[in-house]
């Protein structure tokens, strides 16, 4: 991969010979989770310049979406931010529904909110757990992975899978929430509460942790906005921008929740923001479960939603309907739409262009952690190699989303 043109212009170097060392960290490195290459220019331990190479997990998501039908894109969306697949599903489903001009039924919207927040919890647990583990807090990593296992049990009960859920469809969801969801959530939360409390005590006032995280990787508000950062990275800098509040979707405007913000925009603030967001996600899930309405989980529209299997096997109309929707795809009217949802890394946007046929013309994913990686070199210059681990951990780069 060619190095940037600016590589030859050194930042200030203190070495007596003026020499810097060029070293590559990655793409497979035990302390960075995800395939990323850091081309580092070092003056001793200090980073003089840093060029970041992404793209090792590029699988041609956008090209593949153009090859199949609209419904066939949903499995691809699972594999974007694979730590929170429901959020990706929901984003794409909402984009297609806006192009179709329909709104999913109430129960479906509540269910989507519940699962989005469950996945946000899982993603934050993954991010903080792995970041803590990479810094040496192994216990915290295992505790958070344990908490995540309870959430994955919940996800499996609802969607049938732990990671590749493919749960949303245009106009609804594939499977209804199980009848004992209340009990399952209560069980998961009972473990989660204890674990979050333990991890809080282990890390938030921990001298070593604070030394490694505070004032490292600072990105202040103005610069963060210019770099297109959103989500916890932007909120850590003090900007209270959350897509769920600024441009509400689904039924988020019916719930009471806060947006935790930081002050300095350093790694410690990012950690705290993600940690507090977990409590807010729990609040949303509890409120949604209390007011979950009964009703259908998908629209009753033969142009969009597959008919029930009884109708498919027992009537010729059902069979034809099923056949047309599967073979030709949902006919989405021509047009374009940009739908943003609040992913766990920030604003996840789907810019979808339709030409009126059953296949998408263009599906663009606006990946929040791609921007985070773009800003990462700015955050790292002047710090030391060990700070890469902390900062990169807090960016929560998920390869599937960054590279698509």
């Amino acid at each position, binding site marked *: 991969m060619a190095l940037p043109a600016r590589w030859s212009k050194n930042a200030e170097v203190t070495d007596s010979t003026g020499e810097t060392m060029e070293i590559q960290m990655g793409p497979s490195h035990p302390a960075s989770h995800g395939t990323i290459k850091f081309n580092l220019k070092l003056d001793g331990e200090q980073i003089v310049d840093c060029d970041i190479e992404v*793209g090792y997990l590029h699988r041609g998501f956008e090209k593949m979406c153009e090859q199949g039908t609209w419904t066939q894109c949903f499995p691809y969306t699972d594999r974007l931010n694979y730590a929170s697949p429901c959020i990706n599903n929901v984003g794409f489903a909402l984009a297609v529904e806006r192009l179709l001009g329909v709104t999913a039924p109430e129960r479906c919207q509540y269910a989507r909110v519940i699962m989005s927040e469950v996945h946000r919890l899982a993603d934050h647990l993954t991010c903080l757990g792995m970041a803590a583990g990479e810094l040496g807090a192994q216990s915290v990593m295992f505790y958070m992975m344990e908490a995540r296992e309870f959430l994955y049990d919940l996800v499996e009960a609802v969607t049938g899978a732990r990671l590749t859920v493919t749960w949303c469809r245009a106009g609804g969801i594939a499977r209804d929430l199980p009848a004992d969801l209340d009990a399952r959530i209560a069980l998961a939360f009972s473990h989660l509460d204890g674990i979050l409390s333990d991890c809080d005590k282990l890390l938030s006032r921990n001298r070593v942790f604070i030394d490694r995280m505070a004032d490292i990787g600072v990105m202040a508000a103005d610069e963060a906005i210019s770099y297109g950062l959103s989500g916890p990275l932007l909120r850590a800098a003090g900007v209270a921008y959350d897509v769920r509040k600024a441009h509400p979707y689904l039924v988020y405007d019916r719930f009471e929740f806060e947006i935790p913000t930081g002050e300095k925009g350093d790694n410690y603030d990012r950690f705290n923001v993600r940690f507090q967001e977990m409590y807010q996600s729990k609040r949303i899930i509890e409120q949604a479960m209390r007011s979950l309405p009964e009703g259908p989980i998908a629209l009753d529209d033969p142009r969009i939603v597959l008919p029930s299997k009884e109708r498919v096997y027992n009537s010729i109309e059902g069979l034809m309907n099923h056949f047309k929707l599967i073979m030709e795809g949902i006919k989405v009217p021509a047009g374009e739409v940009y739908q943003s949802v609040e992913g766990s890394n920030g604003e996840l946007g789907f810019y979808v262009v339709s030409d009126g046929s059953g296949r998408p013309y263009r599906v663009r994913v606006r990946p929040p952690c791609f921007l985070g990686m773009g800003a990462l070199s700015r955050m790292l210059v002047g710090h030391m190699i060990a700070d890469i681990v902390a900062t990169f951990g807090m960016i929560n780069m998920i390869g599937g989303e960054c590279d698509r």
Partner: protein
Amino acid sequence: MLLDQLKERFGADLVAAESARDEETIVIVRERALEVMRALRDEEAFAFDFLADLTAVDWPARTPRFDVVYHLHSIKRGHRLRVKVATGEPEPSVTSVTELWKSADWFERECYDMFGIHFEGHPDLRRILMYDSFEGHPLRKDYPVNRRQPMIPETDPILNPLRPSR
């Protein structure tokens, strides 16, 4: 409302302006793109401080072929706008907006990588997702999804480096 303000302010620089599905879209003249975007960022009424997305759409049957699509958000004011700039063969290019929003840096690199659109004034325009010796621009409609790439020589950092050592 926003569209009226935009039409009044930019007049002839707008090729088209429309509102659909609660979203406003304007198409601007390629040569004036940078000035229009600078005004959109700096003027109080618009205050588009956040470049949410920058991508392109390939319409091979149309001339000009590409639409470079910018999604501008205003965190301050809360409104959003889609801006399109058309550019076409033989050498599609638009002016880079990296001096306005730093997020444009990587977005434009990806757009160049996937579509082959050149961004004039970009400080460091090279591929980002694909490897350097990749041939072609994959998201173009005339790039077949199952096209194979030539084998590239194996690189060894000492014996056959991809980049020259000092």
